[in-house]
């Protein structure tokens, strides 16, 4: 079982590195932001695996916090980083 956990952890780490490449390569801002989002989810998975592997239950709390706050960067990106002269259009958007 431990080996499986190790291999899964390594695979996830690999996915993490790929995600890093995605953030670097872009090309657009939206892509970078999304890649960062996925990066966070991958981190959550990694933390859950490590909690089992290292026998550290506290790591699940870390994963919980990470999952809770995962949305923050994207919301800040959408709310604030977008062109400042567009706020009026942003406000009355309906989905």
């Amino acid at each position: 079982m431990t080996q499986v956990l190790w291999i899964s952890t390594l695979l996830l780490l690999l996915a993490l590195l790929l995600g890093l490449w995605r953030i670097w390569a872009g090309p657009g801002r939206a892509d970078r932001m999304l890649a960062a989002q996925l990066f966070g989810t991958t981190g959550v998975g990694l933390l859950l695996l490590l909690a089992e592997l290292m026998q550290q239950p506290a790591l699940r709390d870390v994963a919980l916090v990470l999952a809770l706050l995962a949305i923050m960067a994207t919301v800040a990106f959408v709310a604030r980083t977008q062109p400042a002269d567009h706020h009026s259009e942003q406000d009355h958007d309906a989905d």
Partner: protein
Amino acid sequence: MIDLLLALTLPLVALGVLLARELFRAVVMFIAFGLLMALVWVRLQAPDLALAEAAIGAGLTGVLLLDALGHLRQPHPPGQPLRSLLPLLTILALVLAGALGLVLLGALLEPLQPSVNLPAEVALHIEASGVAHPVTAVLLAFRAWDTLLEVAVILVAVVVGLALRFSHDDAAAESRVSSPLLQGMLSWLLPLMLLVALYLLWIGSYRSGGAFQAAAVMAAMLVLLRLSGQQLPGQNHPLLLRAGLVGGLGTFLLLGSVQLLQGGAFLAWPEQLAGAFILLVETALTFSLALLLYALFEASPAPARKGHPPRTGDQPS
């Protein structure tokens, strides 16, 4: 294997942050760096730091930076100065970096001979500290003096932010997201965040967690609330807000002085009640630090609307 991979990735990501041509890319890379740091702290057997890094490094700092980025978008005069000095600076930086690298390599690889075994000391005295979790014991008993001053440090940063804030009219111009989906999600996400914050606060006395991590989660909750364009309850009571900001430091000082006023030492907790006192201080700190961290975000000057140049502060009358 994991350790080597992580340890190698860290400087590479740092390089990415520093070399990114577009500033936005640098900031997103930095957010990813924060997350990697959280993983590194996990591997360094420091879950408390992983928690703090996940909440502060990947959460709040990222929001602060993205928020600032949004305000710095107008084109600025091209050709930043200092072109003439740049080659000189480059050489200087490289020489410095090289020297520092050699020195550090030497220092880091030197065999360690600690004259004191502090972890053993911590284990020896943890019983008397009133809490079971070593990091909390260090923060709120053994080295409470540092923690007290650190709260003051945040307060100073907030005060400077308040002092430099633009007038309130400008603040109305800032953008926010208004999406029904976001509102719907926040209606259960925010209470959940509050719950998790309280859980972290409580669990800090015997496991990883504590005031700072709890405060960071709570601050994130307030920031999300603000980003989604909602009013904070009590936002229009400046005195209440001020009281909240100084409340943590005040409570810490007050409870720390209880023994002092009875002839004991400052920051010594009463023998039987040490655990209760620490929990009390931590609770006050959590709420106050959350407000402070939120204020770090909120106090930053809002952008001026076009045609309304910001007030430039005082002119002698």
